[in-house]
């Protein structure tokens, strides 16, 4: 059996992803998150974990330095990486939405959309037949309409609290998001046994959770 290298997303998704792995019976070290080490080996599972920025997980997997990764569907839509999307882990549910200040309309000449997801946002508005200008931001997207940078934002919404607290409202829902198990196309073949095993165990756990 060869060792599996798994890219885990830092932050919000991490805890739920690690919990799911543990529920599936994987013995992960309890301090995986706080550890200062970037790469952690778990020899009894023949696995190796590393933490990466959620946006980067699919990149590591595409290049094959990670065999497997856990990434939000938002990342997969935005990055369009050549990886297998094998399993919906059904964790960290949220959605991508268009939001803005209440009772406002789009600027008719050059409506501006601020977002961390330029690919998704431009595809969405193009399909609607609306010509917009996309402005890429790296965080605190809610600020953009407040300060007058953009008419609308496209961002992840999980509870809607951040939007409400900033006096923004949702205009449209683009697509629902959950975390996915992604796999490098070569690893999917070469390490098929190990990966099938992981997929089966996770599938069982996800189904059990759904019944509960």
């Amino acid at each position, binding site marked *: 059996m*060869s060792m599996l290298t798994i890219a885990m997303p830092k932050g919000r998704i991490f805890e739920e992803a690690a919990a799911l792995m543990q529920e599936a019976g994987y013995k992960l070290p309890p301090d995986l998150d706080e550890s200062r080490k970037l790469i952690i080996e778990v020899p009894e599972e023949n696995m190796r974990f590393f933490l990466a920025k959620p946006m980067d997980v699919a990149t590591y997997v595409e290049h094959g330095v990670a065999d497997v990764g856990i990434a939000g569907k938002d990342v997969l839509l935005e990055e369009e990486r050549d990886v*297998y999307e094998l*399993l919906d882990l059904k964790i960290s549910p949220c959605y991508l939405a268009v939001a803005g200040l209440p009772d406002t309309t789009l600027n008719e000449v050059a409506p501006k959309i601020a977002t961390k997801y330029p690919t998704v946002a431009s595809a969405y508005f193009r399909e609607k037949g609306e010509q917009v200008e996309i402005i890429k931001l790296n965080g605190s997207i809610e600020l953009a309409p407040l300060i007058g940078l953009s008419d609308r934002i496209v961002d992840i919404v999980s509870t809607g609290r951040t939007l409400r607290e900033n006096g923004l409202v949702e205009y449209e829902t683009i697509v629902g998001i959950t975390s996915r198990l992604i796999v*490098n196309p070569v690893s999917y073949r070469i390490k098929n046994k190990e990966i099938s095993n992981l997929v089966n165990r996770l599938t069982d756990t996800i189904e059990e959770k759904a019944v509960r």
Partner: protein
Amino acid sequence: MSKLLMFEKPVGMRDTLPHIYETKRKVKEAAEGAMRSWGYRFIETPALEYYETVGDASAILDRQLFKLLDQQGNTLVLRPDMTAPIARVAASKLLKERVPLRLAYSASVYRAQQREGGRAAEFEQIGVEMIGDETMSADAEVIALLVSVMKETGLEKFQLSLGHIRFTDELFRQILGTEERAEQLRRFLYEKNYVGYREHVKNLPLSSIDKQRLLQFLNLSGGMDCLDEAAKLIEGSAGAEALDELRMVFGRLQEYGVDEYVTFDLPLVSHMSYYTGLVFEVYADGVGAPIGNGGRYDDLLGKFGHPAGATGFGLRVDFLLEAIGQLEDEAGIHCVLFSNDRRVEAIEEAQKRRAAGECVLLQDVAGVKDVDSFTESCKSVTFFVGKSSGGNV
């Protein structure tokens, strides 16, 4: 854009330095040797082709093509693969000769990278095309040759996945009824989005049995037994025929003694519309993308006005090198250093060694600033310096 610095080059373009060149040359020689020994003849085609002909017929996505204009305003492409140019040559010239044609190539192809570095935009491909033979023997030969080529290059651990696009098409057509719906589903496979595929199937207005058939299809990979499973999912003769072809080719590969490298992978869709029969990809440990791929493309030659069945494969030399891993040391070069007085002696020595097959560099000592660092990379050195007779160091 800021002013370019003199060392910069376009995204995805790479230099090949001497030690990499040596390794690459050896790998290519091994691969080409294997192809030649199977009776394949090498050909070359131009780097530039018309966008409307070869560009359009090629399997490579439009957005990956490098396009430019010639003096008359025609759109040209830098060849994105070798299969389409070879189909052009075969259809217009060679198919009048002996058929089936066995052709091979080793050439650079060009694919634009729009996103980022880390992926080559120019890379060498080495491969074969077998044109005009529609039997399974041709498919089996091409795969057996591929395995032989991989082994000749020194690669031990690799794996080949084998699918059949007509099985996929027939299953989807049977269950979904229309080509349009089949294409939707095929796109999920092409994009490797199994989650999306399952979601899509769940929401289709189908009986639960048919849904189950489509979901089962995703699991059809592995050994011969997965073909038996596949037979249960499909009705009618067209699907069974595709499975028979897979069985037959596998049998031939057993006869070639290369079946250990082959596994079935029926959901494999390496292109939306290009292939018409058997498809395959080859993978090696430690390289994140397939090293090569191929399959049967019976519709391509027709686009060039001379319909004929064809099959072939292409391997990426850069990925092959990555899989092999080790680089050659600097080629063993012998150094003859001389001072002006003893030039004749030095030339004689160099010529003698060259005649014996050695690589010998002849260097005037006056032209070297630091003799130690200059001679460091040579396997051995002879000095013809000063008055005494030369000696080896």
